[in-house]
């Protein structure tokens, strides 16, 4: 039976990483749990593209709930695994996928947004800029394509610009609900846009296309380039 330390639930490492783990004196690893990452900007910093009200709810309520429930599911999974309770392990998978995916996706989302005065909306330069022109013709074409896919997504989900790390090719794709992009292949997320209604409804109501049009003003291509250049130096 796994030993648990008192520290397993608290964040010892930097809050920014949202990741915590600790090792007991006997060397048995305790459960790794997660915490809500801080935003690198104020809630109101992305206005008028995304309202402060939405940012606060989205971060403090929605994302926090994913983190809380993900941790709960992981604890239950550990217990079930240790007991060899296969049905319980299997039953937990959907909660892990949903809440874990929610935490992963939203952590990416906050990073790939930036206030205008910190470069939000500035077009990509360097190798990512060239790759976009090569694969899509132009930045405008890429944005159009992502907006179309995002608007057409039925129900809840995400629209992504990803890098196929095997083919070294850029792709546009969508995932349903909170499925992370990795579920669609060997893809690294460069830009992710949340098209769940909670991401825009309080401000844009049912007009998702308006939200999509405006969010590009605060997309951080700087962050996307950083991720891209790491994979394609």
């Amino acid at each position, binding site marked *: 039976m796994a030993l648990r330390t008192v520290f397993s639930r608290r964040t010892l490492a930097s809050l920014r990483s949202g990741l915590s783990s600790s090792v007991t004196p006997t060397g048995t690893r305790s459960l790794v749990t997660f915490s809500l990452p801080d935003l690198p900007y104020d809630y109101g910093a992305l206005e008028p593209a995304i309202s402060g009200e939405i940012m606060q*709810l989205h971060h403090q*309520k*929605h994302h926090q*709930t994913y983190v809380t429930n993900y941790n709960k599911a992981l604890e239950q999974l550990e217990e079930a695994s240790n007991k060899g309770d296969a049905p319980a392990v299997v039953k937990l998978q*959907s*909660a892990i996928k*949903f809440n874990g995916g929610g935490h992963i996706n939203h952590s990416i989302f906050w990073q790939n947004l930036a206030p205008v005065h910190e470069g939000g909306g500035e077009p990509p330069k360097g190798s990512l800029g060239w790759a976009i022109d090569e694969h899509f013709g132009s930045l405008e074409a890429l944005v159009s394509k992502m907006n179309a896919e995002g608007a057409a997504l*039925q*129900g*809840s*989900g995400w629209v992504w610009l990803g890098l196929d790390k095997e083919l070294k090719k850029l792709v546009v794709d969508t995932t*349903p*609900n*909170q499925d992370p992009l990795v579920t669609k292949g060997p893809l690294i997320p460069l830009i992710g846009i949340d098209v*769940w*209604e*909670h991401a825009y*409804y*309080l401000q844009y*109501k*049912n007009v998702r296309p308006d939200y999509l049009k405006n969010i590009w003003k605060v997309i951080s291509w700087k962050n996307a380039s950083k991720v891209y250049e790491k994979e394609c130096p």
Partner: protein
Amino acid sequence: METVATASLPCALFPRRGKGSPAAGGLASTRRFPYNESKRKCGAGKIAAKFELKPPPYSLDALEPHISQETMSYHWGKHHRGYVEGLNNQIVGTELESMDLEDIISRTYNKGNILPPFNNAAQIWNHDFFWESMNPKGGGKPSGSLLELIERDFGTFEKFTQRFITAASTQFGSGWVWLAYKANRLDVENAVNPCPSEEDKKLVVVKSPNAVNPLIWDYSPLLTIDVWEHAYCLDFQSRRNDYISTFMEKLVSWEVVSNRLEMAKARAAEREREEERRKQEEEHGSTPGDNEATEMYLDSESDESEAE
């Protein structure tokens, strides 16, 4: 008295869905879902026509303070309206144009290989059903045979409520949660239920994603709650659980649910009778249809009769 013959003989094999319950019309199909009357502007014959946006059975502010007028004005006025307009655009010039909504849903569900009009068609049906599931003075507890069945199949009303609420909280993403009456047949030719019992017909709580609804599984929906975020985020923000509790405590129209249950039971009973007739027909080699046709000719006083 209207005889069947006057209802136009060529259509006897494919009965029109009449207004009201299947009990009202002799040949009303038990496969049709009688809960929504036709919302088309129909002329004298079967003319292809557009679907209309049907208003809820109460004003847009009537569900306050639980569901705001603002929510209703977007939810009904924009989302629901959008589905209606979307479907009308999609079906123009296609075979779907002259079909009933339930038939469009079934055809475009396409056994899981969903065709584009499905989302709009199913969402129209779902929202009509949802508005009618609520009442400004709703909530409380059901009674009569509905309560009996709930207690038979869930133990207690409280346990049912808990099951329903849990399902609604754990429908990950957009979708709907339903109380439904499940009385479907095995859809394979020589599959026979070896121990038929009354409990084969039972109440179930089911979840469905996005636009999917239990019609596609051949269940009879009795009650639904919309758990797409647009249904509650203006009034409850992220607090889906509060929305669900409010719905159960203050808004559910148990009277409507009871009526739907009666209709579902009647539909199941009619199906069993059809099944019996078909079994007898196979055993005795006669076609009841012929007999009925003969009776029509003998009894009818219309000009179409050949009985002179």
